[in-house]
């Protein structure tokens, strides 16, 4: 009788561990892609959608990848007819909202590839974000494509 009552508890414990990440996810990363470029290119541009599904603000602090020496978040913008780029030190994503990195706007500036970046490859993205005064890490992949997802 005693073992019978414990079984469901063990099951619940296992399930919570298995799906814990899903249940407690705060940050979703979707539609990630990197613009493919000709051989010998030293700079690539990446795009994705950050979705903050938590009730707290999230700030993206930095990004890394095993395929690039350095990744920065940049913003392309046109002001008074002049096209410029600006480095964004931390990207704010308010609670329950979405921030898109799109061609011609916010984008990942991916510098000095450590290996050949070929169309169709998956490239690792490691995202360091801050929420409620804690730094957390999320791993994701981006597909190398010519012109994004149709």
């Amino acid at each position, binding site marked *: 009788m005693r073992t019978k009552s414990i079984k469901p508890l063990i099951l619940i414990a296992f399930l919570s561990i298995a799906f814990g990440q899903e249940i407690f996810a705060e940050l979703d990363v979707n539609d990630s892609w990197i613009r493919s470029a000709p051989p010998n290119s030293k700079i690539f541009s990446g795009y994705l959608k950050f979705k903050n599904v938590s009730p707290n603000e999230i700030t993206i602090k930095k990004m890394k990848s095993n395929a690039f020496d350095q990744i920065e978040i940049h913003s392309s913008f046109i002001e008074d*007819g002049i096209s410029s780029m600006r480095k964004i030190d931390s990207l704010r994503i308010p609670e329950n909202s979405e921030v898109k990195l799109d061609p011609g706007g916010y984008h990942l500036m991916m510098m000095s590839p450590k290996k050949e970046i070929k169309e169709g490859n998956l490239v690792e993205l490691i995202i360091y974000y801050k929420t409620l005064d804690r730094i957390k890490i999320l791993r994701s992949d981006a597909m190398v494509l010519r012109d994004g997802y149709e």
Partner: protein
Amino acid sequence: MNRRNIIFIVLILFGITGLFTYFQSLPSLLEKKPSLVTGKILTRPMEIDNFELIDQNNEVFNKKSLVGSWTVLFFGYTNCPDVCPTTIYKLAEIKNGIKEDLPSTSFNTVLVTLDPDRDSTERLDEYIGYFDETMLGVTGTYENIQSFTSSLSVFYQRINKDQGYDFNHTASIFVFDKDGSLFATMSPANTVGELEGDFFTILNNF
């Protein structure tokens, strides 16, 4: 002053205002130029000074290269990973649309680099060939790029970074007519649909 005089003065005032508005709108009524959503058509096409540049096939690109077809030209550099490929793809899509719907129209697209140090004709060939091989990629000496940009009032400024450098530069797309004169300018920030609409407006009316 009696009522008649007041009515007379009011009518005169109405008349003056009417004439004034009429004459103000007269130039645009006479020209009947359609307007663009993404930019503007010049009041009259502007002839530009001659220039001497070179394309990715090592062919001379000068004022004569603009004659005989519509030319769409913009400035950039191949180390620009975001805006430049985006504009190239937008223009390629528009060019395909024009080829399909207005097949008799000759329509060329050109990227002029602001970075002759890194953008040799070989690099431009590799870069342009990858994104849109029907496009021309043009470079030149500092002096020649400088004089071409200044004849179009294009601003550019090198911004040094920890690694390498970027450019802030005039974003406009420049449209030249078949005589090689500057005809219109547009902003590349608009969607393909908006830009394509404006190109059709131009090509169908001129």
